[in-house]
């Protein structure tokens, strides 16, 4: 794999989709062919995206690393940089450096059942892992996908979830805290879905990504269902400015989320995320 450098590379937007009012997806092509050919990422990693004159933000990589095509990122416009990125269109350029961080436990999950629990835009960092597993369907057992959103309008990729659902031994469960008139799925917290979820107690790996209160609520329910805590993995989010473990903002106890994570084995991070202020 190509080691990320200190400087961004130029990347061009090749397609753009407005997913919801404030969420959009862009596909990015690295402009230099040599860098494009040697760039490799791993599901669960992220890139630092740079908006000219404004700054950088860490954004997880949505596309399957085995896709030779452009790099896909799904972004919520929430701060200065992401509001600016939202205004870019196809053909516009930005800076990209990465990939950074440790991704999902694909090796540990191989040959096992996998439960994917995500909330809000936490669905983005897990998508590349789901795509990776579904491309190698025989390497994994039951795949259960749970996604929760605050409002039914916040659900993105509805069609993709419906396609995944048709695949053998894949269960997809969607919930919204507030359902609308066109909402055919469950109403409530993502944890209410766990009652309906197929979670074989043996040989199950759980991966979680989303707001920490959501993950903290889901984990005891996984433990009740006899999922081994050693097989629970979470992706943690903190303020990251450098991506390379230098700036210090993303520390949680002894961990630099940007390079020791963002994905952690639950027992390695449990003591810290349960405490206010870390």
């Amino acid at each position, binding site marked *: 794999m190509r080691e990320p450098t200190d400087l961004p590379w130029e990347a061009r937007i090749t397609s753009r989709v407005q997913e919801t009012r404030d969420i959009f997806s862009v596909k990015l092509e690295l402009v230099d062919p040599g860098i494009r050919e040697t760039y490799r990422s791993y599901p669960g990693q992220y890139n630092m995206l740079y908006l000219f004159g*404004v700054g950088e933000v860490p954004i997880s990589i949505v596309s399957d690393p085995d896709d030779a095509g452009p790099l896909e990122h799904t972004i919520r416009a929430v701060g200065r940089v992401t509001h600016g990125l939202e205004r870019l269109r196809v053909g516009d350029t930005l800076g990209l450096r990465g990939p950074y961080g440790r991704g999902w436990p694909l090796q540990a999950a191989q040959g096992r059942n996998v439960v994917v629990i995500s909330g809000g835009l936490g669905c983005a960092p897990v998508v590349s892992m789901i795509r990776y597993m579904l491309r190698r369907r025989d390497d994994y057992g039951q795949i259960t996908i749970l996604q929760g959103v605050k409002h039914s309008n916040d659900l993105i990729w509805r069609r993709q979830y419906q396609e995944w659902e048709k695949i053998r031994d894949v269960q997809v469960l969607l919930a919204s805290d507030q359902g609308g008139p066109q909402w055919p799925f469950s109403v409530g917290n993502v944890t209410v879905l766990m009652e309906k979820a197929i979670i074989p107690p043996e040989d199950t790996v759980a991966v979680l990504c989303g707001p920490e209160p959501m993950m903290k609520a889901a984990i005891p329910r996984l433990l009740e269902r006899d999922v081994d805590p050693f097989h629970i993995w979470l992706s943690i989010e903190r303020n990251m*400015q450098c991506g*390379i473990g230098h700036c*210090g*903002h993303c520390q949680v106890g*002894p961990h630099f989320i940007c390079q020791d994570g963002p994905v952690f084995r639950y027992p390695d991070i449990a003591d810290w995320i349960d405490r206010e202020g870390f």
Partner: protein
Amino acid sequence: MDEHSVFLPRAEATRLLQALKGAGFDRILGPVAREGTLLFQPVKRWEELPMGIRDVQQPGSYRLQQQEGSRCFAWANGAQALKPLTFTPREIIWRAQRSVEGHLSFESAQESPEPTAVVGVRACDLAALDLQERHFMHGRFPDPWFRKRREALFLVGVSCSHPADTCFCASTGDGPAITRGHDLGMAELDEGYLLWAGTQAGRTLLERLDLDEATASQRRAVEKETHQATVTQSRTLPGRHLKQGLYERLQAGHWADVGERCLSCGNCTAVCPTCFCHMEMDEPALNGGTSEHLRQWSSCFNAEHSFMGHFVVRSDTRLRYRQWLTHKLGSWHEQYGRSGCVGCGRCITWCPVGIDITAEAHALLQEAPDA
């Protein structure tokens, strides 16, 4: 100090500066009394050093006093360690350019640092530099900006004979004598200086000076002063199991007590020689064609530090002080193999309300562990 120490008479001390210049160090920095403290400034002659100056340090207070005597290092430390020389308070790290057609290109803003000799570095500050090297140079992503500046330094350490009331390097094991991290070590006596080499570059410089060996009585005099500088230090950090002790007391009531007193100003992190946190930002030019990407010292006492877009992880001072102390004295061990405190005492002196890291650590450990 070692058995190969040589002696530089006080009257000839400027020869050391000349030898450094002769060895290619066009920039020689030494401690100079300025702005009410001691700062590393360019020096050409030994007389520019703070002769007869003493520092009086107390929690929240720093005063210089002019006294009799010819000693130039009869003080403990100033507000700055070596940190600004290798980890610049504010610097451009790269520049982005946007062409008229909208193409972006990026170039490193790295400059070639001038070879720099620093005379009068304390043992605590050499230990702190070693810690900063572990952070910036020896991780998975070595920092090229830090590394180049570090490699341009030649360090003349000087053993402490007059520690301040706020010093506790004996307790952390980082001083007061120069034992590692130096190119050249130095100890001051009334009649002059003992010098010894720590690196090949230091040995080469001593050969240029061609000095006589130090006498046994001069070596004994230095040993005595070092011993005195060790035993006069009254502050200590709790020695054993400090990390575990703090981790077991994350809910202690004393965090709220210190949180009430702390102003969350970030002075302690600015003067701390090991604190490495910084923020990154962009400054675009008005013509819209270029933008400079900068990094600037930052502090875990700022709200910005743990800002998450829609919330702040550490919203009050209690949580920020706890973050600082449990990192400095706790999780540094996991990250860099030792505590992040070298006992220089600057955070005590330069705290506007005189919060004392050693007193807070002792008070915390006196509480019962969390249930």
